[in-house]
């Protein structure tokens, strides 16, 4: 039992150490624009958003939520938003996220459907896995606003 507890303790410490070191790493990498460059700058982000819109149109789980939108404005706003979030020289000029999604009753299913389409669009534009993950990490704080939680 003694060695058992020690081994369990070591496992917990190792995981904790991994979490702490990874946290430090992300702190250091925040202020630069390397993510923006990895996404292919504004033009690369615009391509991703365009491909994502094509996937949304085909996606029965969520396309009804996008009925009647101004596609050009949606494309411009989302591109600016991702550009700004990734450290690029853009400014999102659209409405605040919580207000924007207030009446939409977005389910977790719909949220994941959109996340999937974003990932597939990034993959088809050869965005590296690390950059995909870093962009999604920047988007995480919006989850509760979009789901209206």
């Amino acid at each position, binding site marked *: *039992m003694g060695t*058992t*507890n020690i*081994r*369990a303790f070591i*496992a*917990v410490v190792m*995981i904790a150490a*991994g*979490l702490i070191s*990874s*946290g430090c*790493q*992300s702190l250091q990498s925040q202020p630069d624009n390397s993510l923006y460059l990895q996404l292919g700058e504004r033009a690369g982000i615009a391509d991703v958003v365009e491909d994502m819109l094509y996937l949304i149109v085909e*996606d*029965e*789980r969520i396309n009804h939520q996008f009925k009647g939108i101004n596609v050009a404005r949606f494309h411009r706003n989302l591109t600016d938003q991702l550009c700004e979030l990734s450290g690029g020289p853009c400014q999102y000029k659209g409405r605040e996220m919580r207000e924007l999604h207030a009446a939409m009753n977005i*389910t*977790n*299913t719909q*949220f*994941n*459907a959109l*996340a*999937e389409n974003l*990932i597939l669009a990034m993959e088809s534009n050869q965005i*590296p*896995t*690390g*950059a995909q*993950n*870093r962009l*999604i*990490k920047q988007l*995480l704080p919006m*989850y509760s606003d979009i789901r209206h939680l």
Partner: protein
Amino acid sequence: MTLSINTQWAKTVVPVLALGLLATPAALADVGSRIWATGGVTTIEGSAGGGLVPWAVLGSYADDEEWGGTAALSRAEVDDYTLSVTGAGLNWNNRIEVTVARQTLDLDTLGFALQQDELNQDIFGAKVRLAGDVLYSPWGQWSAGVLHKRQRDFTVPDTIGARTDSGTDVYISGSKLFFAAVFGRNLLVNATARGTRANQGGLLGFGGDRNNSYEVMAEVGAGVFINRQWLVGAEYRQKPDNLSFAREDDWWDVFVAWVPDRRLAITAAFVNLGDVATLTDQQGVYLSLQGSF
């Protein structure tokens, strides 16, 4: 004995493979909407998790408006034993998971001496997602579960001092994915606390002469997604030591899981079960095949 294992495998392999072959890309959305690999795989006890440890995630890809299911077939071959598991699960709205599993432990080395070829156990599980989402919630996803186990060949466990032929494990579990945490890769961390009286997971019965009451065991796991199809990680499972006839060790494994798409997951692992029923240092390979629908 070998024949029965083979037919058991065949009975499960065929439907699992058929699932994979029949489903077409057009039906992808029908498999469920959660992000790839976020249902974990099927543990040796049937619930969703890794190989040895249940996680807070629920099986299949069912999201909050969906149903989903899994079928799995697993096999661990260590030095003196072979464990085969067939399992299936249903998930309602990513809220409740219900699972069944049949474990068969082949007593490869001890069989002749004990005049018993194998030990069988049925496990009925339920897990409820209490709060959170493994990907999106700052504090991760939290679930509670039960595993009711019925040992079907109690003669050997009875002889070595086990008290009862059935028992119920209860556990709480937390899982959280940290995006871009390790060189830009996503890190999945799981911690589980389990109350149990089970000897070797229940295959050697429940309770014993050294201890007959519930004890809380710590179980942890962590993995890194190399990309969305490949997860590499390790698990550690603390175990009770209720029987005086032989020492029971903790379990650990190092695994790699491949999830080519939502319908199929293949897991391979190196497992170390320590000393099992007087036979020392049991290590070997683990292979698991899971289909989701």
